[in-house]
């Protein structure tokens, strides 16, 4: 008993010491005194931390930075409240849902003069007409990342090229129902937003025939797998493809001709915001040409900020894989919010595919 008491007291002492350490560090890191704070809720590693420090300095606003790993988890947090998030970065389909559930505050365009920097092509899109609730942050496509060094000259102009029998156990598929079923739909020339059950059935059956070529269905680890040349081909987002190429220059990326998905991550102000004023200031700051350019080179995704692209390397901006020309963009579709029931159908079909994959 004595020993247990002694151990308990030791633990409590350590805890007290650590508390003291935290309070010292927090005092030391609080560069602003008396200023306001905003809380930013973003994906991990999805902003250049230097920019946060710069914003804090310029505006005398302290930024609390929190991270999430999926749109759905983020929405649950915002819906339940308990924390005042001032700015969040959801994907476009999540914005439609959040609008429906009235989780967003309208954005006052008067307070965002830098909105003029954004390429008009990325404004006024169907998921948020007039950009009433959201401002684009980064964008991209869904396509095929592949490593020609590991292949025998196959190219991927069509989704159907993935079904090539010589690619046994070579293809990695991203663990996301809309992308995977979407590939089936695209390969049959159906719309990515199809709600027609027979089309979806066909797409799933087609996807199942891809089974022997599938190496794995994984999430963010795709980047790591492709970098290490563990796999030759992956169905993935352009942002991840850029991350792969950053390390492994052999990798190439293509958006198949049948069409694909165009996605956006956007800045929004959740209804839980405690400092909407500061949130507007932050969004406007992120849209400054120079800031956006620096952020883009840190994150590596495609920026919708036209003024920023003018400050960036021509080599990056002219890369048609990540900044596709107009005629390719025509073939891209933005996801619509299909409603929870339809999303359920997509997920059950995807689960069915996964269960069949092994045989």
């Amino acid at each position, binding site marked *: 008993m004595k020993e247990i008491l002694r151990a308990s007291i030791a633990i409590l002492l350590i805890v007290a010491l650590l508390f003291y350490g935290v309070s010292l560090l927090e005092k030391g890191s609080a560069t602003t005194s008396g200023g306001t704070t905003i809380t930013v809720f973003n994906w991990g590693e999805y902003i250049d931390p230097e920019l946060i420090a710069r914003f804090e300095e310029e505006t005398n606003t302290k930024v609390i930075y929190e991270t999430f790993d*999926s749109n*759905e*988890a983020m929405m649950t947090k915002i819906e339940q409240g308990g924390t005042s998030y001032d700015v969040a970065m959801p994907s476009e389909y999540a914005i439609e849902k959040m609008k429906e559930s009235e989780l967003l505050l309208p954005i006052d365009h008067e307070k965002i003069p830098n909105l003029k920097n954004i390429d008009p092509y990325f404004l006024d899109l169907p998921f948020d007409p007039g950009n009433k609730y959201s401002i684009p942050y980064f964008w991209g496509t869904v396509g095929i990342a592949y490593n020609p060094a590991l292949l025998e000259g196959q190219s991927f102009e069509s989704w159907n090229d993935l079904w090539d029998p010589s690619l046994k*156990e070579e293809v*990695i598929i991203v*663990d*996301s*129902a809309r992308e995977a079923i979407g590939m089936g739909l695209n390969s049959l020339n159906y719309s990515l937003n199809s709600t027609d059950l027979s089309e979806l059935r066909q797409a799933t059956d087609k996807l199942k025939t891809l089974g022997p070529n599938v*190496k*794995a*269905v*994984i*999430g963010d*680890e795709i980047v*790591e*797998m492709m970098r*290490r*040349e*563990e796999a030759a081909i992956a169905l993935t987002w352009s942002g991840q493809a850029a991350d792969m190429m950053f390390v492994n220059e052999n990798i190439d990326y293509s958006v198949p001709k049948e069409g694909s998905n165009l996605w956006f991550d956007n800045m929004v102000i959740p209804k839980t915001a405690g400092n909407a004023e500061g949130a507007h200031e932050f969004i406007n700051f992120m849209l400054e040409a120079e800031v956006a350019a620096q952020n883009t080179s840190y994150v590596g995704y495609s920026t919708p900020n036209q003024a920023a692209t003018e400050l960036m390397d021509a080599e990056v901006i002219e890369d048609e894989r990540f900044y596709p020309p107009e005629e390719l963009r025509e073939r891209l579709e933005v996801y619509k919010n299909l409603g*929870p*029931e339809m*999303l*359920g159908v997509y*997920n*059950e079909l995807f*689960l*069915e595919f*996964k*269960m069949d*994959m*092994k045989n």
Partner: protein
Amino acid sequence: MKTKAPRFYYMIPYYLWIVLFVVAPIALVVYYSFFNITGDFTFSNYQNFFSSVYFRMTLSSFWYAFLVTLITIAIAYPTAYWLTKTKNKQLWLLLIIIPSWINLLLKAYAFIGIFGLYGPVNKVISTFGSRQQILFTDFSFIFVAVYIFIPFMILPIFNSLDKLNPALFDASRDLGASSWVTFRRVIFPLTLNGVKSGIQAVFIPALSLFVITRLISGNKVITLGTAIEQQFLVTQNWGMGSTIAVFLILFMIIVMMLTGQKDRGGAISGKTK
């Protein structure tokens, strides 16, 4: 058993915990399981559970959990047994636990590297023959699952072995029993409680593993946990997710009953039946 129960107030925190953090969430789960995705009252989630996809998934989930538990026992038992015979046994035991304090996701990434086509394991293999695909197979899944659960099995077995009275071994040997017979008839029965504890801490969580089903097995193994995760976080169909959870809880109760103790009583002094 003439000692009376300890005073009730010792138990207040524990019962409070049960009510707040067990009963309340369970009530919530059961409640949600009767609503479909659009928020209408329904039994369809339960019907759906018995549809082919979920039923197959349940079976395969059980099969893998069973394999994982069995292999964990097979590896953990000798480890625990020999650990009790080392000089600084408590220290060695701690050293078994320490690796589990490093973040699981990081360790999973490390395993991706270790089992990878160009990783150390394949380097060894390639000196004998051609490189093998180890990742995304049943082998890698079971290996990593066993890796995760090993401390949870070793600890209770170690504790039950550690207190065995050495006189028992001598007595058994004096009576002419071989060491195998001693083990099977004397040692193993006396450590059964520890093994059962270990099974509870391994088999049940193995049904709901989810991080490594994706990272290590590439979704080629799907557990009930993965399915619930998907329903909650991706489909946002809390009703179906809760329904699967209700079944998981039922399975757990069955496992508890199977591994539960028949009667209280000292294994050391009261094994007279």
